[in-house]
C-alpha cells in the first residue's frame, strides 16, 4: 500500500466546510435552545415580533441543524476522507478543486436564502422540505456538484477498491437525490396561473394522503440518508484511524450496509400509523422498522468490537470517548425507534414529546458526537497543529452527555405522561382531562429539556473555542500522527 504521506492532500474545501459546520451548528442549537424555553416560558415568543415566534423558528431550527450543521459536516468529512481513502489529492485535478470551492460558495448562498425565507414565513410546510421551488433548484445544483466531486475523485483514484466509507457516501448522495426530487415535486403557481401572486409560491403535486405518504417516505429516509448513512461513513473511517485498530469484521460491514439500504426505505410508514394511509402500508412500516434493528446494530456492534482489547483508549483519549458513546447512542436510538414503531406503542407515543426526545438522543448523541469527533480528528491533520486542550474536551464530553440525558429522560416522561392523560377517562367513561391540563403538567419537563439543550450548546461552544485555539495557538506538529490525535493537556 502506498504511504499516504507521499500524497499531498489538499484540505482547503474540507476546512471551509468545517468552519461552516461549527458556525451553523451554533446557530441551529441556539435557536433550538430558544424554542425549547419558549415551550416552558411562552413570553419568549415575543422577542422579535412575528419573526421570533415558535412557528417561524421551529423549521429554522430543524433545517439549520440538518442542512447547516450536519450537511456541511458531511461535506467537510467527505472532502477530507474521500481523498485519503481513494489515495488521490484534489490538487491533482484543477477541475475538482474549482468545483469544490464553487460548491462551498453556492452552499453558503443557499443557506442564506433558506434563513431569510423561513423567517419571512415562506415555506411549503413539509417537514425538512420547507423550501420553495427556487431554493429547491439551488439545493439540487449543490447536490449534483457534490455528486460530481464524489465520482470525479473516484474517477482519478489510485486505490481501486472502494473503502466502506465511500459506499456510505455514495449511498448518501443517491438516496437524498432520489428522495428530495420526488418529495419536492411542485407546480409554481405564478407561471401556471398566468402571472398571479408571488412568483416563488408553488403547490404540491400530491394531495392529502398521497402527499403524506410521499412526505414521510422522504422524511423518515432523510433521517436515514442524512442522520445515519453518512455518519456511519464517518465512524468507519475515523474510529479505526484514531484508535489504530482495524475494523472488526468486513462481513459484518457488508451485511449492515446492504441490509440498511434494503430495509430503511420501507420504514417511513411508521410515521403514519392509525392515519388514513392503507393499513397494509402501516403494518409494513411497523415490521420493517423492527427489522431495521439488525443492520443498525450490525454497524454499531462492528464499531464497538473494533475497540476489542483496546478499551484503555476510552480512558486516555476523549475522541474515542465521543465515538464510542456515539455508537452506543446509535444502538439506543435504533432500539427506541422500532419500539415506537410498534402500533400499540405508537398509539400512545405519536404526537407527544417522546418523539422529539427520540430524535434528539439520535441527533445529539450519535450524529453530534460523531461529527465533533471527526472534526477533532481532522483538525490536527489539516492545520498541522496539536489539539489545544484535552481537559476542555473531557469537560465538554461530560457536560454534553449530561445535557443529552436530561433531554431524553425529560421528554420520555413528558411524552408518556401526556399520552396517558389524553386517553384517561373518569368512572363514567368521559375524558378525564381537558387538553390544557395535559399541557400545564409538562412545564417542569420543558424546563429540564431546555436546560439539557443549553448544556449541550455550552459544550459545543467549548468545542468551537478549542477548535479556534488549536488553529491559532496550537503547537505546530511536524509529522502527521499515525493514530491517536496529539493533544495538549
Amino acid at each position, binding site marked *: 500500500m502506498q504511504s499516504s504521506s507521499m500524497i499531498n492532500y489538499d484540505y482547503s474545501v474540507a476546512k471551509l466546510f468545517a468552519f461552516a459546520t461549527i458556525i451553523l451548528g451554533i446557530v441551529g442549537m441556539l435557536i433550538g435552545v430558544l424554542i425549547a424555553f*419558549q*415551550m416552558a416560558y*411562552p413570553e419568549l415568543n*415575543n422577542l422579535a*415580533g*412575528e419573526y421570533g*415566534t*415558535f*412557528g*417561524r423558528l421551529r423549521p429554522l431550527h430543524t433545517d439549520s441543524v440538518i442542512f447547516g450543521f450536519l450537511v456541511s459536516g458531511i461535506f467537510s468529512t467527505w472532502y477530507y476522507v474521500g481523498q485519503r481513502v481513494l489515495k488521490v489529492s484534489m490538487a491533482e485535478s484543477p477541475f475538482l478543486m474549482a468545483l469544490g470551492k464553487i460548491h462551498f460558495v453556492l452552499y453558503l448562498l443557499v443557506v442564506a436564502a433558506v434563513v431569510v425565507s423561513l423567517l419571512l*414565513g*415562506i*415555506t*411549503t*410546510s413539509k417537514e425538512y422540505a420547507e423550501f420553495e421551488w427556487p431554493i429547491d433548484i439551488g439545493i439540487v445544483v449543490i447536490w449534483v456538484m457534490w455528486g460530481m466531486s464524489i465520482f470525479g475523485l473516484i474517477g482519478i483514484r489510485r486505490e481501486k477498491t*472502494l473503502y466502506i466509507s465511500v459506499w456510505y457516501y*455514495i449511498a448518501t448522495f*443517491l438516496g437524498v437525490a*432520489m428522495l428530495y426530487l420526488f418529495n419536492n415535486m411542485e407546480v409554481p*403557481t405564478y407561471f*401556471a*396561473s*398566468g402571472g*398571479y*401572486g*408571488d412568483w416563488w*409560491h408553488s*403547490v404540491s403535486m400530491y*394531495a*392529502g*394522503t*398521497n*402527499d*403524506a*405518504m410521499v*412526505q414521510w417516505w422522504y422524511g423518515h429516509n432523510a433521517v436515514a440518508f442524512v442522520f445515519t448513512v453518512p455518519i456511519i461513513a464517518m465512524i468507519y473511517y475515523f474510529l479505526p484511524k484514531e484508535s489504530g485498530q482495524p475494523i472488526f469484521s468486513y462481513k459484518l460491514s*457488508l451485511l449492515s450496509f*446492504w441490509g440498511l439500504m*434494503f430495509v430503511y*426505505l*420501507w420504514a417511513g*410508514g411508521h410515521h403514519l400509523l392509525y*392515519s*388514513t394511509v*392503507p393499513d397494509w*402500508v402501516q403494518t*409494513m*412500516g411497523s415490521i420493517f422498522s423492527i427489522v431495521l434493528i439488525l443492520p443498525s446494530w450490525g454497524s454499531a456492534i462492528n464499531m464497538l468490537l473494533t475497540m476489542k482489547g483496546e478499551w484503555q483508549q476510552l480512558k486516555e483519549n476523549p475522541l474515542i470517548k465521543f465515538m464510542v458513546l456515539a455508537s452506543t447512542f446509535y444502538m439506543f436510538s435504533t432500539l427506541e425507534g422500532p419500539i415506537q414503531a410498534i402500533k400499540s406503542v405508537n398509539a400512545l407515543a*405519536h*404526537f*407527544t*414529546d417522546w418523539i*422529539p426526545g427520540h430524535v434528539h438522543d439520535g441527533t445529539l448523541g450519535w450524529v453530534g458526537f460523531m461529527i465533533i469527533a471527526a472534526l477533532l480528528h481532522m483538525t490536527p491533520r489539516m492545520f498541522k497543529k496539536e489539539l489545544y486542550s484535552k481537559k476542555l474536551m473531557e469537560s465538554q464530553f461530560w457536560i454534553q452527555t449530561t445535557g443529552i440525558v436530561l433531554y431524553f429522560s425529560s421528554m420520555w416522561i413528558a411524552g408518556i405522561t401526556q399520552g396517558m392523560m*389524553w*386517553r*384517561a377517562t373518569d368512572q363514567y367513561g368521559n*375524558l378525564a382531562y381537558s*387538553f*390544557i391540563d395535559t*399541557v400545564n403538567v409538562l412545564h417542569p419537563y420543558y424546563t429540564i429539556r431546555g436546560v439539557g439543550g443549553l448544556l449541550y450548546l455550552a459544550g459545543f461552544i467549548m468545542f468551537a473555542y478549542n477548535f479556534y485555539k488549536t488553529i491559532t495557538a496550537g503547537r505546530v506538529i511536524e509529522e502527521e500522527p499515525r493514530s491517536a490525535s496529539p493533544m495538549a493537556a
Partner: protein
Amino acid sequence: MFHWLEKNPFFFAVGVFLVIAYAGLITILPDFMNSARPVVGTKPYTVLQLAGRHAYIKDSCNACHSQLIRPFKSETDRYGMYSLSGEYAYDRPFLWGSKRTGPDLMRVGNYRTTDWLENHMLDPASVVPGSIMPKYGHMFNNKANIETAYAEAVTVKKVFNVPYDEKDMPKLGSFEEAQKLALEEAKEIVDNMKNPTVKEAYAKGEIKEIVALIAYLNSLK
C-alpha cells in the same frame, strides 16, 4: 460479487439505487389513485379559505397542531369523527402535522366561533388560562395574500382538475371576480369581529390575514 462491485463504482451505484428505490414504488403506487379520490361532499377551498390556509402555513401552525383524528375513542370524544382519506383530497400540501403541542384542528370549525378564534389568536392565555401558544397579533396587521391564493386555485384547477366553477363547487372566475367573492365571504367574519384595525381595513376593501385564517379554520369540519 460484492468484491467486484467495490471495484466498479458505476455498478455499485446502480446496485445501491435499485436496492433503495423499489420500496417507495411498492408502498406508494398501488393505492395512489384510491387515496386521491374525494369523499362525497368534500369541496375545494374558496380563495379566501385558501389564503387563510397559506397564513396557517406561513406561521407553521402545523408545527404544533395536527389535523388527523385517529380512530380511538379518546380522540373521537375529544375532536369528533375520525379522519377519512377522501376528506383530504384537496389538501395540497397535507397538514397532518407530527406533534400535538396544541390540540388537533381537523374539525375545529364545529366547536369554535369567529369571536372565540379572534380573542384566542390575539392572546391565547386570555381565553385558555395557562396556554403556551404564542400571540399572533401580527395577523391582525398583515394583509391576506388573496392573489397568491387565487393563483393556486387556478393552478390546481388547470393542472389537477380540481372542480372549481362546477355545479355546487366554489367559484373562481377572473381575478377581479374572485377578489369580489372573497370580500363578500369575508364580510360575515369581519361583522363578527371586534378588532378596529381589521374593520377599518375591510371598509377600505382590504382583508387581513386573521380574517382569512378564521375563514379557513371555520371551514374545517
